[in-house]
């Protein structure tokens, strides 16, 4: 049964693998255009939350209505955002989180006047980042991602020592990141520090399967190319699915509680989703093309 499906798939794939490349190509072109327009409108590659623009996050351990706070205070605190935190098991409200561009002293003062009690380190947490520092910080993290990507590319070249297969791995990783970025922008996700970490993690995860695929195809001699691709596919899809599902479950659990972790998981889930596409269409097609051409 399995053999039959495999051979059918083979024939179909042999005929169409080059055409399949159109899908990622369209997506990449669309993404690049989208990013271009987005950059023109926002002067940045994504929306940033206050951990990257500078401002204050205030968490108050009290059962306060987030919507009411937003209504009452939005004219006093610049760019105010509020949300509530619940206990996962009891469903009881644990705290309320406020985010604003105002500085910490100002935020604390306004809230203390509003609540009519003092905010101490026992009933609240404050995180403040100055806007100059944030800008700098953000710039450097982008540079870090860029350097990380370049380093990754160099290592990939060292491993395979051939242009096309190495480029295929790098293009797939690049496409993963680009598409994830675009989807995050379309969803209106406001990127935090955690989100940027997630992009770094994504570099690592997306090349894993590509390296496995390329090694199996280039450095093995047994079986046909298609058999090797299918073998690699079985391994790779298990790898990606385990991570994808594990992160999805973790995302559900931490979603109300930690903004940083939930953003990391959201981006990884999106990124791994695109990785399936980019490894098994983009990378597979390029490398199959390369191997077939070399054989002729």
């Amino acid at each position, binding site marked *: 049964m399995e053999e039959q499906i495999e051979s059918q798939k083979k024939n179909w794939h042999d005929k169409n693998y080059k055409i399949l490349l159109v899908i990622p190509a369209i997506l990449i072109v669309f993404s690049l255009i989208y990013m271009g327009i987005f950059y023109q409108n926002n002067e940045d590659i994504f929306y940033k939350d206050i951990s990257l623009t500078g401002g204050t996050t205030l*968490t108050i*351990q009290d059962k306060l209505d987030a919507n009411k706070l937003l209504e009452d205070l939005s004219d006093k605190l610049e760019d105010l955002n509020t949300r509530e935190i619940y*206990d*996962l098991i009891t469903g009881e409200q*644990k705290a309320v989180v406020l985010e604003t561009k105002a500085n*910490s*002293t100002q935020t604390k003062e306004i809230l203390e006047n509003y609540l009519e009690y003092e905010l*101490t*380190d*026992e*009933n609240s*947490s*404050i*995180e*403040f*980042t*100055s806007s*100059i*520092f944030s800008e*700098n*910080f953000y710039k*450097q993290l982008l*540079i*870090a991602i860029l*350097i*990380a990507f370049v*380093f*990754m590319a*160099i*290592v*990939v070249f060292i*491993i395979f020592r051939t242009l096309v297969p190495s480029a295929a791995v790098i293009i797939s990783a690049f496409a993963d990141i680009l598409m994830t970025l675009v989807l995050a922008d379309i969803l209106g996700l406001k990127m935090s520090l*955690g989100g940027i*970490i997630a992009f770094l993690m994504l*570099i*690592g*995860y997306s*090349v*894993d*399967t590509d*390296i*496995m695929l390329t*090694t*199996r195809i280039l*450095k*093995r001699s047994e079986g046909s190319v298609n058999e090797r691709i299918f073998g690699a596919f079985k*391994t790779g899809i*298990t*790898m990606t699915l*385990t*991570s994808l*599902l*594990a*992160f999805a*479950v*973790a995302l559900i*659990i*931490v979603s109300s*509680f930690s903004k940083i*972790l939930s953003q990391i998981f959201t981006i990884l889930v999106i990124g791994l989703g695109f990785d399936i596409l980019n490894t098994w269409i983009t990378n597979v097609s390029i490398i199959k093309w390369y191997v077939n051409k070399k054989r002729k």
Partner: protein
Amino acid sequence: MKLKLGFKIWLVIIIVLLSLISIFITPNFLKKGVVIESVEANSTAFEQGLRQGQVITAIDGETIENLEDFTNALQGKYSSNTSVKTIFTTLDSEIILYTNEVPEITVSEISKTNIKLGLDLAGGARALVKAEDRKLSSEEVSDLVDITRNRLNEFGLTDLSVRPVSDLEGNHFMLIEIAGATPSDLEEMISQQGKFEAKILNDTVFIGGERDIASVCRNDATCALIEGCQQSQEGGYYCNFRFSVYLSEAAAERHAEITKDLEVNSTSQGNYLSEKLDLYVDDNLIDSLLIGESLKGRVTTQISISGSSSGETQDAAYDEAQKEMHKLQTILITGSLPYKLEITKLDTISPDLGEDFVKFIIFAGIAALLVASLVVFVRYKKFKPSLMVILFSFSEVVIILGIASLIQWNLDLASIAGILATIGTGFDDQIVILDEAKQKTILSLKQRLKRAFAIIMGAYFTAVVSLIPLLWAGAGLFKGFAITTIIGISVGVFITRPAFSQIIRRIEK
């Protein structure tokens, strides 16, 4: 060959056991009581010998097992104005206090592990400080760090870390981290300039700042040196140090005016004036220095400050003298910072929320591990290899935590993300191993596993190099993530994965 197989697996077992020891065998293992977190300097409690780190096991004979017992034991005891007697039994001593105030100590329950949680999980404060409108050099930051550490210590903050950090662009910052409860006026304490005064009796001779102190000789052996070490009569050693301070004209005249009427006392170590030069930082007396006879009534812009420190060996005494000299030099330049400070980042995290947080993370981690294991089980439909995958992933987490406890690494949220990244790659690699082992080829199992490692090493190196920039980017705030991940995946690739492949060899055979 058989022996070698055993070795790799045994190695993992031994390392896991060592990690468990590193995590759970705390200095107060299996002991009951509360630990003293801090003792206010110069308080009765401090004078009587209560110190940070001691474990209180009983108060007035009542056993203390937790914070509640501690609070109950002291509650209502000091309501009257008369001094009452309190007996603190610690692990190795008994300390008696007579006081009418609640002892100035803070305590916490004995921690059951050696794992140190970062500020964002355990609560505390973190401030990242730079100079306003100016780039600091690394020397300036290191001075600033010394000065700030001295000052914060004077405020009685003990569980704190002040250190210089820099970022990719070469900006230097001072990073201050305070664990646990945070003083409410932390912001002022940091950004305020320290006030330094040198007084004789109650007259101010000079104050910190460029107006009075032109410069302090440091790191220059011609005017700041350790003059020689000698054996003292009691058996130990002592070393003398001396360094020059250059005063402004005005300060020199004030010095002459104040000292001209003082008497000269003769001692065995030389002739000194009858009053000492008292050094104050933020109105706290830090040190008192003897003034040499020759300085009496003289207008001199160069004064020499000397002292001595003792130690059990000559080296120890030398180190002490160096430290003492450094401390004094730092005090003298305190308040003479030619720039204003700006807090660029200030986080204060409540300890309560952190506790819930840890619960959530553990819960999320277990759930993620179970789901991933389920996928593995569905794919391979074999119980043994699937169980091994879980077991090995779990052992990697234990080893990372063990190493973190050993090197006293503070686990923050970023580190947790790093552990997650490790588990993720661990699963991926193990799937590669399982699949390579299953491949139908003429190659031996050993050769097939070797090929799995070629893939794993490739993935490993790409991951490591992509983490390297994070060690510096953004003033190293994400170092935790980078280091935890690097430790984790290295442990995986070099320790657990080889053992895993050995086990798979045995199962597959």
